[in-house]
Structures are given as structure tokens and as C-alpha cells.
């Protein structure tokens, strides 16, 4: 099930809210939440529910074992075994095909590559569970003694299939206590509505634009005019941020509605002035995961230069691979790694920070733009055609009337989406609030707006979803 569907918003979520309002006892609330989450997950094929439950069971046992063996020094082994088991499962389901295909290229073996369907959300919940096990090992949190509570954490429908990667220690107390405050629910409502609208109106619109302009086989894409390729890539760049951050917004919003506090996952990445900054603002929960559970254990930046470079390369190829089992993701990730190293060791962060924003921002945006093109096409032929197409190197035209029409049809929409990627809206509202404070009448207008805008966005999103001709789910690879 996806958040951006009429069925989820008007059926599943309503029933979920009713259950959370009617049930008073936190334990009952949690049981209801677990049932809803399991149904939600099962919607994509109940088979994989067993995998999720199994992995949660492994980590549940593993963490308990860590706790028990702590005095006897066996806890490190318990942690390693548990994490290795999780990674093995992730590896089998996500990377078998990829590794065998690559292996076959060099050795010609094996003959048949097994087709394993990727269980939805596996990368998200595996990482969540790993973070739990490691945190128990590090004594950052206590092990959860109830299996079903750990399963609830792993399967919680707010974030199970599209992030953010929530740490157990961040929501452990929320899960036990579940206090809800009007202010938080109200914030949750508007956050959810904003997320829904971001997905249904903006991201889906960008997706339509991106995919109508540039679609099909490599040969078909070779005829698309350069401006078409550029516009499509721009739309894709907008889509991927709006879509992804919309899911996080909806997750955070729904969390607030029932007293669960998730951390922010995006912080306007497209206004970054350096690649380092971009990755501090983009998919924060993933970067933090790699920082805390891979980079720092490897020694981080407090070691020799050679080791540092090695660490960075490991981190960035893993980041790439996490996004999909395909070489283009590795290239995409390593590319960022290399750029980060250039920024850190060759240019120097201080020197780069002195570059005026008017130059550094466009440079970063251009890097990100090219990055998303590499990210978008998993097969090499298509990627080559598209990259060449940008410069009319396929013998394609520069411009065509139909590209012009499409651009004109979406011009205000595109401007709006670009602005929506910046904190401009938030800043503007702050200004307005500052300006109207003390002016009673304007204040009441603003108060009315505050009350109704989430509902307006909900209705508008519902209308957009009703047409639902284009509503892609981007995270099936993750």
C-alpha cells in the first residue's frame, strides 16, 4: 500500500485514527498499531511479511543475547552474528542477481541467474533493525523484551517502506508511553497534509513531465531533442526530492498525530553550497546511519589519510548500492565520494566556503542534476544516450514544438516546484506572521488560514489522486 492512494487516505488511515482515538490503553493502542502495520505491509504480498517477522525475530533474540552475555564478554560475538544474519538476508534478497550478473560477465558462470523479487522496504527495515542491535550492544538503549514491540518498531507503517530510518532508541519511550498533545497533533495534521500534497500534486506532476518527455528504449530516447532531455531531467530532479521528502513528511506527520517523534529526514538539500552540505541535508537518516554504524567504527577521519580515503570509498559505494542493486548506483555513490574528497582534501572546506553562494549553489545543483541522471537509468545504453542527448550528440534536434508546448503547459508548476524545494515558503510565512502580529484583523485572517489549509491540501490531493493516471512508487529498489 502506498500513502498516496485514496484507499490509504480515506480508508486505512481513517480506521487507524479511529483505533488510536477509541483505544485508551497504550498497550492496546500498540497492538492495534501493530495489526495495522502488518496489514499495511502484507498489502504488497503477504509472503514477505514472514521475512520481516523473521528478521525482527532474529534481532529480538540477538539483542536479548547481547544483554545476557554482556558480563561474560560474549556480547560482541552475538552482535556480529545478528548483524551478519540481517546483512545476509538483505544480500540474498537484494543483491544476488546483481552479484551473479557481474560475476557472470567475468567468468561466464552461472548459467541461470535466479530472479528474486525484492521485498518492499527491505533496505529500510533491515537498517532499522541493525541500528537497534548495535545500539543495544553499545548500551545506547535497552533490549526490548517483548517480540511484538520490536516487530512494531520494525514494521510501523509510517516508515517501514519508504523511510525515514528511525532508530529504536529515538522512539522507544514514545512507544511505551504515547502521550499526545493538541499542539503536536495539529502540527502532525498539517505536516501530513503538506506531505500528501507534495506527493500527489507536485511529485506526481513532475513524474508525468519527466516520463512523458523521456521514455522508452535507448533507441527511442535517442530521438528526443536536447531541450526535452534537459527538461525531463530537471523534472526528475524535482520529482525525486519532492517525492522522497513527501514520504518523510507524511511519516513525521502521522507519527506526531499518535505521539511518535521521528527526526527530520530532509533539510532543503537543493540550497546546499557544497556537496558535503548536500549530504547533510539529503536523506539525513541514511547518512547518519552510515556515519554512526560504518564510518566511525572504521576509524572515520581520525586516522591516516590513506585510511580516510579508503573509509570514504567504502561508505560511498555502500550508499550507492543501498539505493539499488545496479552499477549505476555504485557509480553515482562513488562519484559523490570522489567529489567529497576533492572538496575536503584538494580544495579545502574553508576555501570552498569562501566562494560566494551565487557560484557555489549553481555548481552544487549542476552536480546533483547530473547525479540524478546517472541515478535514473540502470542500463548503460540508456544512460549513454541520455547523457549524449543533452548535447545533441545522438543526432537529435535541440528543440521541438512538442517540448515547447509541454514546457509552456507546466511553466508555473515548475517554478512553484523549484520554490517548494527551498525554505522560501517557510520564510515567507514567518515574515507574514511578523508583519501581522498586533494587527487583529489580519491576524484572524491568518488564523483562519492556519485552520483550513491542511484540509484544503487534503481535498486537492484527493482530487489529484482520483485521476491517478500517474502515481509512481520510487522506492521499490531501496
Amino acid at each position, binding site marked *: 500500500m502506498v500513502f498516496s492512494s485514496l484507499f490509504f487516505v480515506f480508508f486505512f488511515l481513517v480506521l487507524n485514527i479511529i483505533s488510536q482515538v477509541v483505544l485508551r490503553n497504550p498497550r492496546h493502542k500498540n497492538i492495534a498499531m501493530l495489526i495495522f502495520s502488518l496489514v499495511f505491509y502484507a498489502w504488497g*504480498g503477504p509472503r514477505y511479511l514472514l521475512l520481516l517477522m523473521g528478521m525482527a525475530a532474529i534481532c529480538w533474540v540477538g539483542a536479548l543475547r547481547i544483554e545476557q552475555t554482556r558480563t561474560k564478554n560474549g556480547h560482541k560475538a552475538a552482535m556480529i552474528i545478528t548483524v551478519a544474519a540481517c546483512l545476509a538476508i538483505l544480500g540474498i534478497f537484494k543483491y544476488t542477481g546483481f552479484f551473479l550478473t557481474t560475476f557472470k560477465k567475468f567468468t561466464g558462470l552461472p548459467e541461470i541467474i535466479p530472479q528474486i523479487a525484492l521485498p518492499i522496504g527491505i533496505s529500510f527495515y533491515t537498517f532499522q533493525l541493525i541500528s537497534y542491535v548495535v545500539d543495544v550492544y553499545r548500551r545506547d538503549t535497552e533490549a526490548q523484551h517483548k517480540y511484538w514491540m520490536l516487530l512494531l518498531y520494525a514494521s510501523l507503517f509510517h516508515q517501514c517502506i519508504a523511510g525515514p530510518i528511525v532508530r529504536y532508541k529515538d522512539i522507544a519511550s514514545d512507544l511505551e508511553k504515547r502521550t499526545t498533545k493538541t499542539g503536536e497533533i495539529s502540527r502532525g495534521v498539517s505536516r501530513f497534509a503538506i506531505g500528501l500534497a507534495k506527493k500527489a500534486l507536485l511529485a506526481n506532476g513532475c513524474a508525468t513531465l519527466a516520463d512523458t518527455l523521456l521514455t522508452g528504449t535507448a533507441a527511442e530516447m535517442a530521438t528526443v531533442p536536447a531541450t526535452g532531455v534537459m527538461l525531463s531531467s530537471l523534472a526528475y530532479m524535482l520529482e525525486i526530492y519532492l517525492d522522497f521528502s513527501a514520504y518523510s513528511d507524511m511519516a513525521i506527520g502521522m507519527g506526531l498525530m499518535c505521539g511518535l517523534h521521528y527526526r527530520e529526514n530532509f533539510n532543503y538539500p537543493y540550497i546546499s553550497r557544497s556537496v558535503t552540505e548536500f549530504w547533510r541535508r539529503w536523506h539525513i537518516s541514511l547518512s547518519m546511519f552510515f556515519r554512526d554504524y560504518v564510518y566511525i567504527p572504521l576509524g572515520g577521519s581520525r586516522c591516516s589519510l590513506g585510511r580516510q580515503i579508503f573509509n570514504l570509498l567504502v561508505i560511498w559505494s555502500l550508499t550507492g548500492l543501498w539505493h539499488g542493486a545496479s552499477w549505476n548506483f555504485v557509480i553515482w555513490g562513488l562519484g559523490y565520494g570522489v567529489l567529497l574528497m576533492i572538496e575536503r582534501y584538494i580544495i579545502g572546506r574553508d576555501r570552498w566556503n569562501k566562494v560566494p553562494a551565487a557560484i557555489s549553489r549553481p555548481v552544487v545543483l549542476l552536480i546533483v542534476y547530473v547525479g540524478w541522471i546517472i541515478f535514473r537509468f540502470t542500463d548503460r545504453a540508456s544512460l549513454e544516450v541520455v547523457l549524449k542527448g543533452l548535447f545533441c550528440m545522438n543526432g537529435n534536434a535541440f528543440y521541438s514544438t512538442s517540448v515547447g508546448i509541454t514546457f509552456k503547459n507546466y511553466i508555473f508548476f515548475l517554478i512553484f516546484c523549484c520554490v517548494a524545494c527551498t525554505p522560501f515558503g517557510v520564510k515567507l510565512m514567518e515574515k507574514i506572521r511578523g508583519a501581522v502580529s498586533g494587527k487583529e484583523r489580519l491576524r484572524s485572517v491568518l488564523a483562519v488560514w492556519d485552520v483550513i489549509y*491542511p484540509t484544503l491540501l*487534503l481535498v486537492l490531493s484527493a482530487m489529484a489522486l482520483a485521476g491517478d493516471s500517474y502515481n509512481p512508487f520510487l522506492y521499490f529498489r531501496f
Partner: protein
Amino acid sequence: MNYTDEHETEHDIKTNDRNDILHTKAWLTQSSAADEDDILHTETPASWDGVRLDALQELSARRKQWEKKRESRERHLTEVSGLLRIRLFIIVLFVFFVIGLVWPARPDTSVLEKRKLTEFPTFTTESFLDGDFFSGISTWYADTYPLRESMIAGFMKFKNLYGIRSEQLIRRDSTAARENIPASADESVLATSSDASDKTETSVSVSVDAPQNTEATENAGAGNTADAGNAADAGNTADTQNTEDAANTADAGNTEDTEDTTVAAMDLQGDIYISGNNGYGLYYFHQDQADQMISTFNQIYDKIHDKANMYLMIVPNGSAVELNKATLESLGANYDGDAINYIYSGLEDGIKTIDVCTALKDHKNEYIYYHTDHHWTQLGSYYAYRAFCSVKGITPHELSEFTETDYPGFLGSYYSESNQAPALASNPDTVHTWKPNGTNDMTFVSADGTKTNWWIIGDVSNADASTKYDAFTGGDNPFSYAHNDAIQDGSSVLVVKDSYGNAFIPWLVDHYENIYWIDPRYDTTDTVSKLESEYGIDDVIYECSIYNGTTTVLQDAYAAIGQ
């Protein structure tokens, strides 16, 4: 945006606190610029000498109290507005939830989109395990949601804000890519076409194995390389489809809706271009399809040329007539006129082709195509009829000889396929009709064999806005006929047509005693053999739109008719 309001209040509180401290300090050091605040003003001491320190402290305490009150009032306000926000949101969410629960209000067909809506999935262990059952429920829920069509229409109006929408392209054909059209079907092409005809014959022989099933050929033909086994499989699939279709038709029950909705929607393929308030269908040429069409019609001609005269008219899209070639090519599409000429150039000389495209272009400024639908108007078909008359060598009737009736308020396929583009909604069509003089009575035979008496020009004033083109011959039916008593020479015509033909049939009524028309998209093999043997047809007119003609679906259907 949502979390700023709280930040904002926090920020306010902080500044207030700071101001408070500053103010108190100012008072204590007897800064005269105390405040403009009303409460403080009234209590401003007259002179510093007479003021005791505790009074000052009292003042500052009062001020603090007042600030606290204001704070709590603000908090209260945010609390109230937060509560209202939650309530409003939940109420609206709940209203949508309840609407979604009203089972009887859920439609099973969409008249506007001319399709059967998704059915509630049937439960099987397999579909349950792989998730199809659940995803089926989601699709069913959204597809049959009671307010769906009005919600889409509303959203399309909203989308007008997205940009300058004086011109729009609605992409429906994902494989749309223009091929160059050769000037004529030269020998090399004919060689390949005879190659293609071999393949068609194979597929035809398969259709003999699977009798009563024209669509079996369609599928077999679609994959030219398909071996017999595959073709048989295709036949099976088609078989199930046919049964389903038949069931659908039976479901519809109501006479006016007996046409199979899924078939009727097949007419419109390709992308839609909207310029101003007019819709146009775009055509993409595919040489293999065109060549196969040539070979299909040549084969038909070989079979029937000693029995009847064979006429062929390929009807172009409105875009070919009303827009110029350069515009079409700049949109990445092909000019239908060239494609039609190419096909005509490859046909046997004995086939009497009617150059509809030129005939229509002479009247391009008249109302010959609908703006919101892909069909030509009856006026458009009138000019095609005049062209037919000149090929046949008879005198056409003048338009003034017929009685005209108009049915306004037609919003056709471009409107529904563009997801209800507001530009088209603002420009609804009028269906102008001219009744034949000889007779307006006809009979149609539905897919299940039932005969229904109908009108050649029916009254559609009360029909749904999207179905008004059904004024002509009651829409598409497998087989229909009319008898004109005013003519007693035994002359008979058979029209093998798609839906464009519906508007054309009325003009023929005053020239023949017996008028038969069949729609090859239905299973009509039986009918055709009967027609040939029992009724003695003089003229066979093949009418197809450029898209249908070059689509394998129809070609194979035509091929089957030629048997």
C-alpha cells in the same frame, strides 16, 4: 510551514521576555523612554523622587503578569486554532471515508470514459499470496470511488494554473515515433508486403482452426513470428476476452448501450493535441502496419472482385484536414494524407479508392470534425459521400434535400481521454444530423443475436453528453440493415465500417434498396458468408479510419471478413 507557528510563538515569547527585562532595567535607571504600553503609561510616576523601589517592583510584577496573560491568551488561541484544524481535517477525512463506504453509489461503468471500471477482485490463494488480491482492492476502491469523475474534472480545472495551456499534448501512445512515409508503395515494398501476406495467410489458417473468433486472427497476426502453438495460445486468450465482452454486452442490457464499450473506445488511438478549444488526434505512421494493410485489402479484392465492386475509403484524423502538414510534423506526428496516398498507391487497380482527405480539405473551414471527439461530423461524411458518388458515377443529393436536427452539448472522446480538459468542456459540440428521405428505420443485431428495431438518425437529446455520436445508427453494432422501400431495383450495398461509418450510412440510404453494414471488430464471420450467398451484394464499401486501418487489430478483422 507547520512547525514554524510554534517556533514563531516561542520566538515571540523570548523577545517578550527580553523586552521585559530591558523595560524593568530602564525603569530602575529612570529612563524616561519607558514604554508606549497603556497600562504602564497610566501608572507612570510623576517624579522619580517620590517613587519607592517596591512600587517599581510592583509595577514590573504587574507587567510580567500582564505579559503572562497575553502569553496564555496566545497559547489559548494557538490551542483553539490547533483544535479547530484537527477537527476540520478529521471531519473532512471522515466524510470522504463515509462516501467511500456507500457501496451502491459505486459505479461499475464509466459512460464518460467508455469503459468498464475495475471490479472487486476475486479471492484466490494465489492472488492473495502474491499481493494481487490486495492491490486489486486498492485499484477497485479508487476506480469506483463515487465522486471520482467530478474530482478529476475539478482537478483538471485546477491544473489550468500549471502553465500556459493554450496548446496541450496529451500523451497516450507511449511508442509514438514518427517514421518517414515513402511517396508510394514501390516494388521493394510490395515484395515485403507479399511477404507479409504469407504471414497473414498463416494466421488466417489458424483462425479457421479457431472458428467464430475473428480476434484470434488479430492476436496471431500481431506477432508475425508467432508459431502455431503461440497462435493457438493467443486464440485462447482472445476467446476468454470475447466471452467476457459478450457478457459485458449482455450486462449492459439497455438497448442504447448494447454496443461493446471496450470495442468502441478502440477507435481513438495515439496522442491528442489540444489547440485553443479544439482537440486533434495525432497519427504516427508505421510502415509495417501500412504494408500489411495493403496486402490485406489486396487479398480481399482477390476474393470478391468477381462478385462485387470494391470501394475503399480511409478516413483521416481531423488534424490532417484542419491543421497543416508542417504543424503535424513539428509535433512529431505524421500527416495522414501522405499515409493514405501511400496505402492507395500499393492497392490493386480494381479497388476503387475514394480520396476522402482531399475532399475534406476543400471544406476545411466548415464544421466537418468535432472539436471534442475524434469523429467526423455528418457534414464531413457528406463530403466523403459526394466523393464516393463521383467515383461511382452517380449524382449526389444536395444537403438542402434533407431535414436537419441538431443535438447540442456533445463532449466526446478527446474530452474524456484528456481527463476532462477544461478547454474542451468550454467548447461543447453540436451533433448536426440529416435524416435520409427514403426511410429512417433500421434493425441491428447484437452480439448475442437479438434483433432490435432502431432509427438511422436517433434522438439523442436526452443521451449522456459523451454518447451523442450514437445518434447515428445507434452506435456500433456487429450487424445492421435497413430497407428503403422507395427504391425497388434490388440494389444492395454492404459497408464494412468502423464508427466513422455510422455518420456515413445515412447518405447511402437514398441510393440503394438494401443497405447492410457490419462492424468487423465484432465476430461477424457468419454474417458475411450469408450476405455473400443470400443477399447478392453489388457494392462493398470498406470504410476505416487511418488509425483503425493501420492497426493490426482491425486489419485482421478485415482479413477475416474477406474470407
